[in-house]
C-alpha cells in the first residue's frame, strides 16, 4: 500500500512570534501541515497552546550537528531547526531571524547551503491558497510593521518570495 507523504514544516520562534503579533496563530490549523518545533524553540516561544504544533527533541548525531552550527555563531533555536529539517528532509525551514538570513548568505556550511529559509510569507501564501485570508499584502504589511522589520533582510526576503510566487 502506498503511504501518503506527510507535509511537515519546521518552524522557528521568530516566525511564530511574528504570526502571533498579527493574530494569525489560530489559522495554522488550516494549513494542512504538521508543524514541528525543536525543544529550544518551544522554550523560546513559551507555552505553545496550539495543538497543531509538536515539539521534537534532537538526539545523538543531531545534537552534535546543532552544536557545530552554534559554534559558527548561529543561534541555538535556529541551529536546531536547520538540523531537524535536514533530518526530516523537508528541504527548508520557516524562520525570520535577520541574523540567520545574513549567515545563510555569508557562511559556508553544508546544512546551511542545503536547507532553504522561507519566512512568514510562506504561511501567508498557504493560507491564501486555502482561502483562509483575503488581502495577503495587507497582512504582509501588518506583520512587517508589528515586528519592526521595515527595510530589513526579512522584509526583502518575504517580499521577494511573494512576488516570485505570483502575488
Amino acid at each position, binding site marked *: 500500500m502506498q503511504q501518503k507523504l506527510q507535509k511537515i514544516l519546521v518552524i522557528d520562534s521568530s516566525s511564530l512570534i511574528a504570526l502571533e503579533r498579527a493574530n494569525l496563530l489560530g489559522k495554522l490549523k488550516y494549513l494542512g501541515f504538521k508543524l514541528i518545533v525543536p525543544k529550544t524553540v518551544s522554550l523560546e516561544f513559551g507555552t505553545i497552546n496550539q495543538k497543531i504544533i509538536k515539539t521534537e527533541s534532537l538526539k545523538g548525531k543531531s545534537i552534535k550537528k546543532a552544536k557545530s552550527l552554534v559554534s559558527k555563531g548561529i543561534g541555538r533555536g535556529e541551529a536546531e531547526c536547520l538540523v531537524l529539517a535536514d533530518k526530516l528532509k523537508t528541504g527548508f525551514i520557516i524562520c525570520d531571524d535577520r541574523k540567520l538570513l545574513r549567515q545563510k548568505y555569508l557562511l559556508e556550511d553544508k546544512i546551511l547551503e542545503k536547507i*532553504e529559509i*522561507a519566512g512568514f510569507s*510562506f504561511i501567508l501564501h498557504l493560507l491564501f491558497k486555502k482561502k483562509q485570508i483575503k488581502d495577503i499584502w495587507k497582512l504582509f504589511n501588518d506583520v512587517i510593521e508589528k515586528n519592526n522589520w521595515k527595510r*530589513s533582510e526579512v522584509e526583502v*526576503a518575504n517580499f*521577494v518570495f511573494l512576488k516570485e510566487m505570483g502575488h
Partner: protein
Amino acid sequence: MKANLVLDEETGKELSELKKLEEKSKSEIVRQAIRDLYLKEKRAKGNFRFFIDLYREGIINKDMLFILLPRKDAEAIVVGAKIGKGAAKIAKNLGY
C-alpha cells in the same frame, strides 16, 4: 547654518586629502557628503520596495544598489533577494 565638526584623526586626514584631490574647500566636501547621504536615505525611505523589484527583475545590479541607497539598505536587498528567491524555488518545486 554654521557648524563645528569634531573629526577623529583618520577622518581628519581623509578630509585634508580629499581637499587636495578634489580641489574643493573642506566645507564644500562636507556639504556634498551630507547631500549624498540625504538623497540616498530619502530614496530608500520612499522607494524601498521599488528598488527590491528593480533588483529582483535584474534591471539594476548590486553595484547600482550600493551607489543609489544607503549601505544597510543595499545589503538587505542583496541578502534578502537571494533568500527569498531560494525559498520560492523550493516552494514551487514542491508544488506549494
